[in-house]
């Protein structure tokens, strides 16, 4: 077992390996300000009750006070490209028709007929008007009531507001968000400082190259937390330690809704001090799944270069070629590191010039012991060419492995390793006699941050 508890790095108790900020000192071009942010206020070390993940009561509190109040990502704008296209967004027991009503205009309607309450639309698709399949009550795509058959029987509806009730709607990065709370803060305030941090990565211009979904037998927070710390790399993904700076990752929190982890890549784990630069280069190309090539064949480490620099330059050259644009302004960090942001409560997005990975964890309907895990990969395409259509969602059966989804490449086997923990964590928490978890002070600080923000909503 490695012992990396010596005090080093920025601040108090940090791993003895080189810090991410020190790695940035080695960049040869100007480092953008967002990467220099290093903010992790102390949030305490108290144990956290497992009730938050396993109890029905906690789920009911989230249902009543969290989901009705937060901004939540529903789909991509590109998923509903034409006026009248819509996506059905479901959260716990609520259903929303997210509709494109204009070139750059979207609306979110409560998916429930004002006549007898049937859901108006059963699935994603296109409609010139919303006709209830039960009796035919009809609304236009802006939610204005158009009528119902046998109007003579409904004169009592004349004085009623028959417009479809709406939720708040907003967009950022090509994603469409909704909020049930009419008094919510504007989306741009909620997301601050995310838009600024992503200013070099116009996600709204990218296309969804892959979208894979599967039910996982754990609470949605257990799923989300599996991607909020790199501490688990040592035991869960040990084969990637040769090129992953796991223990020397940086963890940041920005206000209530945004947090970030930065895991340096192209350097060996502090747990693997004996690894050579040649091994780092070979393994990152073959195993990471995010580099410009997935084979180390024909690659030899030039004398005097680090693997981190060699792989970043390889990525720079090949990524530029793919998109037909110069990436001379990109830092090595943005070309290879794992820089992952959390948008409270359940969406996570990577920055960087590789495909930008997105995770979302939704409660599986009203079941607090399972969740829906989705991953998307946002891709760039050659400048001047037609934007490719977004990938159709690939819904895996619960018994399928993520590695059965070829479109996510090397991520599949990594997710399978994470998957081996997620359901097991839920099961173990239920069996726990301790009844609580003890988080690492720093490396698991984003998980504490998630729960402290949840508490702010539940206690509001």
């Amino acid at each position: 077992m490695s012992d990396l508890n010596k005090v080093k790095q920025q601040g108090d108790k940090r791993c003895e390996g080189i810090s991410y900020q020190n790695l940035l000192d080695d960049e040869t071009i100007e480092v953008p300000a967002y990467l220099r942010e290093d903010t992790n206020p102390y949030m305490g070390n108290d144990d956290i009750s497992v009730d938050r993940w396993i109890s029905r009561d906690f789920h009911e509190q989230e249902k009543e006070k969290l989901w009705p109040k937060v901004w939540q990502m529903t789909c991509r704008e590109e998923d509903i490209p034409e006026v009248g296209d819509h996506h059905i967004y479901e959260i716990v027991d609520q259903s929303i028709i997210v509709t494109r009503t204009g070139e750059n205009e979207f609306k979110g309607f409560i998916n429930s007929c004002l006549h007898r309450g049937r859901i108006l639309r059963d699935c994603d698709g296109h409609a010139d008007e919303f006709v209830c399949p039960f009796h035919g009550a009809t609304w236009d795509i802006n939610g204005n009531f158009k009528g119902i058959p046998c109007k003579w029987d409904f004169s009592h509806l004349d004085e009623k507001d028959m417009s479809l009730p709406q939720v708040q709607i907003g967009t950022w990065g090509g994603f469409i968000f909704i909020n049930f709370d009419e008094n919510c803060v504007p989306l741009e305030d909620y997301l601050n400082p995310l838009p600024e941090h992503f200013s070099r990565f116009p996600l709204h211009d990218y296309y969804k190259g892959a979208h894979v979904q599967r039910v996982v037998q754990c609470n949605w927070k257990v799923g989300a937390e599996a991607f909020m710390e790199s501490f688990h790399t040592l035991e869960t993904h040990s084969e990637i330690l040769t090129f992953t700076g796991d223990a020397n990752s940086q963890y940041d929190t920005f206000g209530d809704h945004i947090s970030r982890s930065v895991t340096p890549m192209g350097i060996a784990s502090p747990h693997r001090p004996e690894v050579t630069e040649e091994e780092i280069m070979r393994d990152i190309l073959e195993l990471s799944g995010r580099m410009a090539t997935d084979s180390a064949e024909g690659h030899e480490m030039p004398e005097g270069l680090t693997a981190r620099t060699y792989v970043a330059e390889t990525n720079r050259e090949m990524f530029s070629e793919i998109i037909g644009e110069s990436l001379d302004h990109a830092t090595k960090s943005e070309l290879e590191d794992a820089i992952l942001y959390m948008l409270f409560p359940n969406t996570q997005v990577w920055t960087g010039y590789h495909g930008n990975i997105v995770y979302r964890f939704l409660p599986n309907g009203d079941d607090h012991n399972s969740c829906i895990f989705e991953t998307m990969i946002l891709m760039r395409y050659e400048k001047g060419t037609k934007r490719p259509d977004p990938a159709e969602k690939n819904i895996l059966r619960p018994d399928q492995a993520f590695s059965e989804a070829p479109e996510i490449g090397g991520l599949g086997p990594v997710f399978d390793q994470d998957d081996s923990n997620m359901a097991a964590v839920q099961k173990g928490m239920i069996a726990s006699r301790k009844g609580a978890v003890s988080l690492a002070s720093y490396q698991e600080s984003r998980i504490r941050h998630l729960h402290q923000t949840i508490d702010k909503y539940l206690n509001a």
Partner: protein
Amino acid sequence: MTTTADTLIPATDITDNQTVAVTLEGKNILICKANGDYYAVDNQCTHQRAELTGGRIRNCFLACPLHGVRFDLRTGKPLGELTRVALKTYPVSVADDGNLHLELD
């Protein structure tokens, strides 16, 4: 018995995400093109028998214009709750003369 029917429609006449209704051997069939491939299905939604002509195609899914049921053109299988009955599908090929041919049974 399988019979091959010439639709008399040149393959190049159908563009991506377009539908064309044809009557062959008394059957109302919808020919669709999605992602560059041709598909043929019964032109009648299994929910309420509405014609599917003009239904929106996204990727390989055709949406019924009436209530929006989506069918996977590759298998005919529907999504959602409105129907669980698949559309009948027919193999389509591009013949030497450039016309689309269907296999009917």
